[in-house]
């Protein structure tokens, strides 16, 4: 039950993009086309779970030595190295997957959602399994928001009815505001 609460909470109620403003750059940047939105979403789920699997034990080690304040530096280095290794491993062993996700991987290194989920897991005091579930949910929430948003953008982008000052990025943000408003309806679900 606990795991289900975490999962639903992070996907719908505290959606990383729409309620917590994490990972906005790729959300706005790569959501133009449905295909790339799905690719990016899957790559984020993948990296989030891996990064959590790596950083959670490392945090225990840091705390053991009483150097928990190095969290930020250590986490970002682990994530950067991990993403690089994953890219190399995919290229060597699963080329078809690398072809689909490879483009997105370097972008994810500096995605604040990945670092954010690792730090949140520690701050919330989740155990290892809960952390993994939380990370997976955060990624799924990101994918969900991306897919819905790319559908909305297909209708609204480049629409001549949009006022001149709002054309381009402002109308994209207004669209995001509407989607975020819709997701607020999930408030109180968990």
């Amino acid at each position, binding site marked *: 039950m606990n795991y289900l609460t975490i999962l639903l909470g992070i996907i719908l109620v505290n959606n990383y993009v729409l309620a917590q403003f994490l990972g906005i750059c790729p959300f706005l940047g*790569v959501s133009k086309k449905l295909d790339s939105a799905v690719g990016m979403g899957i790559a984020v789920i993948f990296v989030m779970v891996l990064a959590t699997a790596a950083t959670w034990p490392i945090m225990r080690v840091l705390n053991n030595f009483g150097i928990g304040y190095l969290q930020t530096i250590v986490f970002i*280095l682990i994530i950067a190295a991990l993403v690089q290794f994953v890219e190399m491993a995919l290229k060597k062993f699963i080329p078809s997957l690398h072809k689909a996700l490879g483009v997105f991987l370097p972008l994810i290194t*500096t995605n*604040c959602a990945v670092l954010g989920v690792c730090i949140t897991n520690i701050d919330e005091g989740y155990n290892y399994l809960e952390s993994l579930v939380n990370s997976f949910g955060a990624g799924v929430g990101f994918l969900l928001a991306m897919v819905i948003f790319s559908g909305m953008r297909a209708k609204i982008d480049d629409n001549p009815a949009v006022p001149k000052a709002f054309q381009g990025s402002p109308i*994209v943000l207004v669209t995001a505001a509407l989607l*975020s408003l819709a997701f607020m309806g999930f408030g109180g679900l968990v």
Partner: protein
Amino acid sequence: MEKKISKLAILTKGIIKENPNLVLLLGTCPTLATTSSALNGAGMGVSAMAVLICSNIVISLLAKLIPDKVRIPCYIVVIAGFVTLVQFVLQAFVPSLYDSLGLFIPLIVVNCIILGRAEMFASKNNVIDSALDGIGMGIGFTLSLTVMGAVRELIGAGTIFGFALPWMSEHPMMIIALAPGGFFVYACAIAAINFITKGKGVKGSFDCHGCAMASMCQQEKCLAELEKGAEA
């Protein structure tokens, strides 16, 4: 090319002409997340500015020593070091701000503005120019965050910098201070800049062009792949 620009121009271009989050559209996450009140916005702006100035100075000094291939990880380590310092300072002297900014203080590390300036400016210019660039961009970031925070606080809670206004605080429009309001106010701010400059400003867009990682992930290839993926 950068040589021709005067010191004053380097300092002032970040404030309006190349305002990092309203014109270049960088650092969207902290812009949306920390502007629920003017004080939070200003606090975030000043913290990011401190990191930006320090990292610009250090990176411009180290630029020649760092091998080109590992420069991004090196920049990230320098930035992360300064972020940890800022985190300590805030925790010690302004614990209330530390609590309300929360997760977004460590996330300054991955703020595209800081990495972007390191990559695009500090690594190619001397120390003084880089410091000025950091100050200008930092002021621009702080100003726009404070203004957006003030607007959201005024409409969303009826207060300004914590002081309640007579009629407004009795009729707050909560939604503006919540997540959807963040997106909406940011949209209006960019639209206002577009309207004032009549679209003549440097146009930012939410794609690889504004991304700090672009040079690392081979921007053209990346863009081409995205386009190709979309067509297929």
